[in-house]
């Protein structure tokens, strides 16, 4: 991997309190993130039934399962874009269940989207500056009059963006519009935005989809570095089984809206139900690009009756 490892990631305003990772094998590791008994149905269709997931401080947890298993639906529930029929979402012991997506993001929950949702008409630099939003506070008047505090905040945001661009080698593209980048670079920008945002806990939805093999190989070490240096805990959906199993401390496997297996990667991959649901059809693994029906929630209104993929790729 050609990415520079000598460069330290930019200093981030991470809450120092829980920054120290508890050592491996510690019996009372705090559960940083937890969701319990999530139920979602679209009309009469059960998309998620009684899904519970737990991620400890500092862990990278993988989530696998065939298309339509409900992984992205679960992410939408966790990040607040979809309201579950029942169940709770906890981050750091705090109940997020009733909060709006942006409030959850402020509390340190980050997420990426399957199709690398960024601001395509804005420059790379501006994308990164937007990612700083949660670390800045000044309002309209302070910024409109460019008072000292606002100017300082701007300089810090710019410094963060600049340092992050250096780390992920995006500096040559800083002026380019995000929409003009190659897909692999766009995904890199997405991760860079995550770095700037520096969430306590981040949901990555298929970060390796659509990018070249070489870039996929670079992704694993990069994610590890993000964890080491940012003290970020990661829950990752990925279809690239070798990558995700090599990366994860633990894994969950889902099928038909349920968690069917949980544990160490090897254990999960060997689980008979997982093999039956997913790995039993190797010709489809990793080739599935069929877009899933949109289940996100642009407005608080529930989108009802979106047809599910039926568990099998079309």
């Amino acid at each position, binding site marked *: 991997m050609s990415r520079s490892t000598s460069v330290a990631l930019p200093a981030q305003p991470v809450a120092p309190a829980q920054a120290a990772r508890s050592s491996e094998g510690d019996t009372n590791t705090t559960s940083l993130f937890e969701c319990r008994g999530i139920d979602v149905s679209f009309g009469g269709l059960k998309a998620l039934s009684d899904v519970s997931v737990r991620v400890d401080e500092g862990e990278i947890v993988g989530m696998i399962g065939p298309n339509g298993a409900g992984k992205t639906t679960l992410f939408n529930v966790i990040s607040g874009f979809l309201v579950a029929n029942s169940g709770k979402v906890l981050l750091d012991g705090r109940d997020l269940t009733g909060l709006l997506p*942006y409030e959850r*993001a402020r509390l340190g929950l980050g997420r990426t989207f399957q199709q690398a949702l960024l601001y395509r008409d*804005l420059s790379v*630099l501006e994308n990164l500056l*937007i990612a700083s*939003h949660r670390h800045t506070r000044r309002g309209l008047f302070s*910024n409109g009059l*460019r008072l000292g505090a606002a100017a300082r905040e701007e300089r810090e945001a710019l410094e963060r963006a600049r340092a992050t661009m250096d780390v992920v080698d995006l*500096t040559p593209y800083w002026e380019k519009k995000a929409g003009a980048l190659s897909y692999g670079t766009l995904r890199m920008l997405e991760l860079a935005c995550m770095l700037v945002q520096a969430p306590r806990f981040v949901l990555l939805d298929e970060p390796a989809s659509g990018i070249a093999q070489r870039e996929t190989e670079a992704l694993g070490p990069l994610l590890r570095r993000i964890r080491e240096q940012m003290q970020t805990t990661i829950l990752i959906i990925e279809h690239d089984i070798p990558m995700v199993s090599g990366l994860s401390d633990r894994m969950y496997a889902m099928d038909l809206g349920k968690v069917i297996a949980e544990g160490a990667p090897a254990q999960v991959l060997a689980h008979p139900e997982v093999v039956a649901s997913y790995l039993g059809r190797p010709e489809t693994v990793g080739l599935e690009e069929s877009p899933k029906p949109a289940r996100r929630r642009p407005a608080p209104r529930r989108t009802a009756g979106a047809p599910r993929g039926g568990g099998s790729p079309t």
Partner: protein
Amino acid sequence: MSAGVEALRVPRQVSGARPVGKLFGIAAAAVAVTAFAIPALTGSYWTYVFTYFLVYAMIGLSLVLLTGYVGQISLMGATLVGLGAFTSAAVEVHWGWPFWAAALSAGLITLPFSLLIGFPALRLRGLYLAIATLAFAKLIEELVFKGWPWLTGGFSGMQVHRPHMLIPFESDARYFWLVLGVFCAVLAFTYNFSRSRVGRAMRATRENELAAQAMGINIVKYKMLAFFLSGVVAGLAGALQIHLSKAGSFEAYRFYLSFLIFVMVVIGGVRSMWGALLGGVFLILQTELLRGVEFLTRFTDIAFGVGLIWVVLSNPEGLAGYLRDQWAWVKEKPRWRALVAVAFVAFDIGTMWLLVHFGGQKGAG
């Protein structure tokens, strides 16, 4: 590669950290020159026209704040301008308020109306929102403008005097200074906040609501903020406008004007605050140039049509985007720069000359 050595270093002045001091000096000098040159070199009529341009640029700015920054299309611009104009006139005429208080109230009166249209607008986008704002504009026109003579003076309209604050602003030149001052303040404020997290949060909301929320941006807050800001600027422009022409009736703020403003800003470039200025330039140039010759008068609407088609077909970011692209091209060829600068100044002077000699009513001179 180590730390991206071969990479271009991001220039210091990018986005947030422009060398404001230098820029401020240039801007202040330009404004000062304009302030004295316009009344001194041209007559009272052209000073009036230039003031008119500033008012329209400000109205355009109110639309840029809403449509350009958060992507909400509004066809009620003229209504908000009218509300501001009539409010400032009414509180002066009926209650004897001073100009500054009247102008302030003109800005603030738009807030409840922004709230009224803003909340339903959170669920509407694009064409649907445009239609909703149009309906709202028509509603205010019928109920408030036509139905409340106290505010609008009915068919005969309202008459006001130019303000007197410490010094009289009665003459066209003095009033031009006042408008120029307010305009520059609004422009500077917009320039500053649009390059800060607030402006970026607005653009993020326009570009991608999902991603914006996932990054902790309260899209409802920023949309409402844009509605409020847009309304305040429009109301303020209204107050300046009615004091410029010293009279106004609701006929002047029909929804036809909203379309005109909208097209003007789209031609100028809706996504940039410079677009509002360029749109104002376009409006003034074409009306004043074409007005001079009887035969050409009928082409004013056609000029707008042609401009709009040009934008839709080849330059979605309007004149502002076009000039920016051209400038980027010129920047790569330093030798061209001087030539372009000279051509630009020649064009400026030429247009001015054309305007003064052939355009509009003959300049006083």
